């Protein structure tokens, strides 16, 4: 009896012990691997509608027609455009057009993902890697017009995606790392003739400033510096039909070594608002005069309405979220959304940065621990506003860098950098993070860490949640209210671009994602870089050295139907 009781007691004790052990194990693992909690119960994952292999290296860029019927895929080097019909079963290729055999842009395009094609009613506007803007017939792929704009022999590239507005095609050009002057051009939608072209640097007439400007686009540079001063349009072009203004951020000044370009280096690293009809400047806000760390200001630009006023939200590469009055360019606020060491604070009215003297640079001297690193705290497509709310989702890179400025001379067609960099992960935490920013409260609502920097970009909708791709080949969706993981699928290759949310002709929600390799980051992933050199990929090698190259180096486009 006593034996049985004791055995029973032993049993229950054993059960309690086991329960305790598993409880503490769960707590421990939750602390050690917080991702496990998130990945524990994925909701029904999306199913693959279509997977299309490009058959060549490089990240394809994607666009979908307004009716959701056609998926346009543009490959880079050499460039082709393929239209896939999503309305027909098996999604056949509707047409395919070649944009020439030019491949030299592969070595020239550094960091920006290639711009997506821009579909209009019956046309498709494409930025070619050969510097030509083309209009194709959206139904047949036949070329309607072809306009050479950027001189590829001088390393000038078309950057980003064309923007269609007011009967014009707006195109950004530049290549900051090769010392190319950035510009924005307006082409006529119907025949592609050049309506106006405005540069980032140079005399007021080139920049589009009226009389009395004082040519500060020249006088804030030493010597002929403005002629090869960078300031390209690597970020998005944004048009506001309510204010009739064209917005964009300008890239960083060239070269990276700030000692070689004394002065404020106007009008690089700032935000422009232009009149789309004439290209005249309406306002400019310089975010980083004499940009020390070559971060530029070509980050995301998001328009919102607040109490009847149009405001422009700009999470900048320097780690601050700027809020501006879109009509006047007046600063409303600047708040840091990520820890950084480069700036002490930003003036809330003039946007003038107060730099940390401990992070000053000197030629031939290595300054360590500059955060954020040169790729910026946020990529060009790294932010999205959840419609109907005041929640801004930001895909944050939390990298730091060691920076050593070096002597450099401008030789047309060769890189104009003059710096060695090594990127390091942050002191605490992971390199990537999704930050949900509460615009009303002016603070972070929640955040989810990611192991690798989130260079690709982020999309959000109330139905689909927050969707982003990672460099280790995952496409993830998380809930917009708490950051809880909804689903996560392996796409097999890095996703250095932005996923595309759209509605299929049958009304189902879908997301298209391009995976593959582009720029210094993804070429690291393709195994083309020697990771033993910490400066490989301008220092990216140092944070990505544990990533394995994908089994299939080809670019790929996958379309998922959302649950």
């Amino acid at each position, binding site marked *: 009896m006593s034996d049985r009781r004791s055995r029973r007691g032993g049993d229950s004790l054993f059960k309690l012990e086991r329960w305790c052990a598993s409880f503490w194990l769960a707590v421990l693992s939750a602390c050690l691997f917080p991702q496990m909690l998130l990945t524990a119960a994925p909701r029904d994952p999306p199913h693959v509608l279509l997977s299309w292999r490009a058959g060549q290296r490089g990240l394809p860029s994607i666009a979908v027609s307004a009716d959701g019927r056609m998926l346009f895929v543009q490959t880079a080097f050499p460039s082709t455009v393929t239209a896939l019909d999503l309305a027909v079963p098996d999604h056949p290729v509707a047409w395919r057009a070649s944009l020439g055999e030019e491949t030299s842009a592969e070595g020239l395009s550094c960091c920006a993902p290639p711009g997506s094609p821009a579909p209009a009613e019956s046309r498709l506007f494409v930025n070619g890697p050969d510097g030509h803007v083309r209009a194709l017939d959206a139904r047949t792929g036949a070329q309607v017009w072809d306009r050479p704009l950027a001189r590829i022999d001088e390393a000038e590239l078309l950057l980003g995606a064309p923007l269609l507005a007011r009967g014009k095609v707006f195109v950004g050009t530049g290549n900051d790392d090769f010392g190319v002057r950035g510009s924005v051009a307006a082409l006529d939608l119907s025949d592609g003739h050049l309506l106006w072209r405005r540069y980032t640097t140079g005399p007021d007439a080139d920049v589009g400033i009226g009389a009395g400007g004082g040519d500060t686009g020249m006088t804030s540079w*030493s010597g*002929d510096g403005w002629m090869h001063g960078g300031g390209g349009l690597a970020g998005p072009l944004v048009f506001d039909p309510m204010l009739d203004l064209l917005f964009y951020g300008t890239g960083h000044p060239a070269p990276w070594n700030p000692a070689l370009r004394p002065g404020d280096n106007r009008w690089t690293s700032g935000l422009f608002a232009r009149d789309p009809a004439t290209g005249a400047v309406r306002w400019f806000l310089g975010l980083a005069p004499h940009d020390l760390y070559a971060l530029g200001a070509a980050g995301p630009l998001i328009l919102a309405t607040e109490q009847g006023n149009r405001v422009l939200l700009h999470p900048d590469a320097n780690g601050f979220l700027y809020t501006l009055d879109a009509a006047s360019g007046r600063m409303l606020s600047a708040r840091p959304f990520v820890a950084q060491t480069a700036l002490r604070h930003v003036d809330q009215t003039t946007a003038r940065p107060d730099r940390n003297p401990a992070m000053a640079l000197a030629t031939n001297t290595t300054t360590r621990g500059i955060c954020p690193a040169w790729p910026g705290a946020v990529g060009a497509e790294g932010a999205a506003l959840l419609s109907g709310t005041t929640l801004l989702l930001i895909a944050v890179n939390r990298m730091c860098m060691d920076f050593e400025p070096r002597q450099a001379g401008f030789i047309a067609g060769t890189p104009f950098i003059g710096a060695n960099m090594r990127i390091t992960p942050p002191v605490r935490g992971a390199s990537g993070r999704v930050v949900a920013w509460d615009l009303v409260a002016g603070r972070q609502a929640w955040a989810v860490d990611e192991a690798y920097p989130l260079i690709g970009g982020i999309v959000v909708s109330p139905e689909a949640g927050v969707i982003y791709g990672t460099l280790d080949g995952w496409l993830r969706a998380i809930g917009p209210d708490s950051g809880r993981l909804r689903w996560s699928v392996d796409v097999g290759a890095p996703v250095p671009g932005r996923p595309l949310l759209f509605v299929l002709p049958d009304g189902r929600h879908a997301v298209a994602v391009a995976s593959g390799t582009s720029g210094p980051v993804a070429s690291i992933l393709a195994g083309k870089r020697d990771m033993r050199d910490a400066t490989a990929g301008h220092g990216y090698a140092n944070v990505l050295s544990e990533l394995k190259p994908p089994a299939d180096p080809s670019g790929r486009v996958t379309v998922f139907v959302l649950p």
Partner: protein
Amino acid sequence: MSSARHRFPYAIVTPLLLAACSGAQSAFTPGSPQSQALRSLFWLMTIVCGVIWLLVMLSLILAIWRRGPAALAGSPQERRATMVVGTCVMATVAVIAALTVVSYAATRRMAEAGAEEPLTIRVRASQWWWEVEYPDTIASHGFITANEIHVPVGRPVRVELEAADVIHSFWVPGIAGKLDTIPGRTNTLTFTARHIGVYRGQCAEFCGLQHAHMALLLVVQDPRGFARWEDVQRTQAVTPSDTEQMRGREVLVSRQCAACHTVRGTMASGRLGPDLTHIGGRAFLAAGLLPVTRGSLAAWVADPQTLKPGNNMPLVPLSPDDLRAVSAYLAALR
């Protein structure tokens, strides 16, 4: 005969020793309060130390001359000797302390910044030439030149010294003491030139093959002349006035020259070699090697490695016509 043979080495050595005592590169013709302070310090130290040395030698000779028997311990002679030695030690300490204070005061006076806003010049030493940058608050008013520093008389000048490759040392004896340029560091030197004139300086730290040919010129001008010079330096390169110069510019821009040299106003924007925008107006070529004339420019371009072996300018093979055109263009870049 034999005395003439003995005198011969002195006849050579003495003028060689004294050759540095005057002229454009001499610490004995000071052109600034800083070099004046250095000279006073030098004379003070030399005279004081010389006198002491003479006294020591005299007493030594005297002591040997009047050598007597060794003093016994505790004897009055020994007590006197102890007192003499003690006094001498105390005198030595006092003299050294006084000289230290004077030297410290002189160094301090040299580093003193005047009330007036100094003219800032950035000098970057490379193998084997000097890049001279005049920064300005209006960036486009700044300019870069080489191997020649112009300063206005009477205005304090602050020289920021950097090195591009190895350690060099900036030394213009007539104006200031030497200061090393160290890669990755910025050293600063301040001075105020008091006398109009041309001072020669050179690298004072062995820096490689052509260390000997790494000179620079410091030109002290009246403020008006300096302002005029600045205005000229700020302008872009002159446009060629004839077809030969035109061709020279074309050759310079299209050939290897443009990859290393800058000529403002053309596509040539290299930074490896000296800025050539106003080379025709400079006194010397290749860091004090040759005076600037069309002929020396042509000779230099034709064969830099024979004139200054080991320097970083390669021999660019040019046809005789091209060479003539380039030298005409360079000489016209005033």
